[in-house]
């Protein structure tokens, strides 16, 4: 009886608090949505995935489950707002041999092959976005871990004492209905794309995201005047709403590196 009373008392205290919190959260979300398009939600993978399907046979009933790669490879060039892109960045002539060498030995030189962090923009569009009034949070799933980026949108500048990192220091702003994320202050040990695309700590990445109907368009431009002859705008990716909730990625333990018998490698993201 006493416990029941205590529980009742606790509920009387807590329920209004929870309700207020939910109301406040909802108000925040509505305010964000009222001012700008709301990008919040879970989005499909838009990176290279194992290109195999699953064939399942249960008591003679065969089903095949395919992997949707359309967000990675669909042609987005005709989508309004998409900027002209090139399939590859343009490196300074004296650095092209290095890029080719990294590419030729990718199985042994690509940090991502050994559980390294892909960094920005190689990690692709976020898997989940939480858009608030003063900041937007990007969540990712990756074999190297599950990074997040907290992106201020209240006009504050880049942090002048932030340490260099794989995902950089980001600030966001709106250009009409386009959310623009400016990231800089990167460490140098990532590749910004497959095929040996190394960079320096001068790299700056600008990502642009906007809604196309119910879908989300993501396009990134890489600037690094120390290695590139011009900024590289990547082909845009169009990702779709997803009902697949995020899940903690299991630890990454790469053991194949010592078993490589040649330099074969395959297309990565």
């Amino acid at each position, binding site marked *: 009886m006493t416990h029941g009373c205590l529980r009742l008392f606790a509920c009387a205290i807590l329920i209004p608090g929870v309700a207020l919190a939910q109301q406040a959260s909802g108000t925040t979300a509505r305010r964000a949505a009222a001012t700008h398009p709301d990008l919040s939600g879970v989005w499909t993978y838009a990176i290279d995935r194992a290109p195999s399907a*699953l064939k*399942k046979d249960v008591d003679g009933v065969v089903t095949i489950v395919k992997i949707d790669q359309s967000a990675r490879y669909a042609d987005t060039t005709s989508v309004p707002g998409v900027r002209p892109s090139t399939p590859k960045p343009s490196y300074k002539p004296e650095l092209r041999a290095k890029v080719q060498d990294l590419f030729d030995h990718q*199985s042994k030189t690509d940090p991502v092959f050994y559980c390294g962090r892909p960094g920005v923009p190689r990690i692709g569009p976020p898997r989940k976005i939480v858009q608030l009034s003063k900041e937007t949070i990007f969540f990712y799933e990756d*074999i190297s871990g599950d990074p997040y980026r907290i992106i201020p949108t209240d006009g504050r500048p880049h942090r002048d004492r932030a340490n260099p990192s794989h995902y950089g220091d980001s600030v966001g702003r709106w250009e009409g209905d386009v959310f623009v994320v400016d990231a800089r202050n990167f460490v140098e040990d990532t590749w910004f794309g497959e095929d040996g695309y190394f960079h320096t700590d001068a790299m700056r990445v600008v990502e642009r995201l906007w809604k196309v109907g119910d879908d989300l368009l993501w396009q990134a431009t890489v600037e690094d005047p120390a290695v590139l002859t011009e900024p590289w705008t990547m082909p845009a990716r169009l990702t779709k709403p997803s009902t697949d909730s995020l899940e903690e990625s*299991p630890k990454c333990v790469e053991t*194949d*590196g010592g078993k490589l018998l040649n*330099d074969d490698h395959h297309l990565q993201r």
Partner: protein
Amino acid sequence: MRHTVFPVGSLVFTLLGVASLHANNSPSAIFDMQKRVAVTGTLSKIDWINPHIVLTMDAKGEGGKVDHWTFESNPPSWYRSVGLARADFAKALGQTISVEALPARDGSLFGYMRKITLPDRTTLELVTN
């Protein structure tokens, strides 16, 4: 030995996708894409890890000794996307399963699993997407 190795057409493995979610090494740098090994034994361990899930099997070898086979396969997130979880394999722990895999080029008891037959005869196979 309780395992067999047989050649297959190259087209099968040209079409077979064994890339990981984000990145891994090329299967052809480690595995013989022209052969397939079939092994039957007891599923002894499951490592649900990136960049590949790993299954360990104890199979009867030559002279009655036990061979400890290791098979890797696609990453956990791929299995999640096709509706499979660790639990779907864990129910077979300690029981007899059969695996068809690309054998390691170095001749070790290691392969890339492309098909597994579970104790209830359910088969799961990687095919062209």
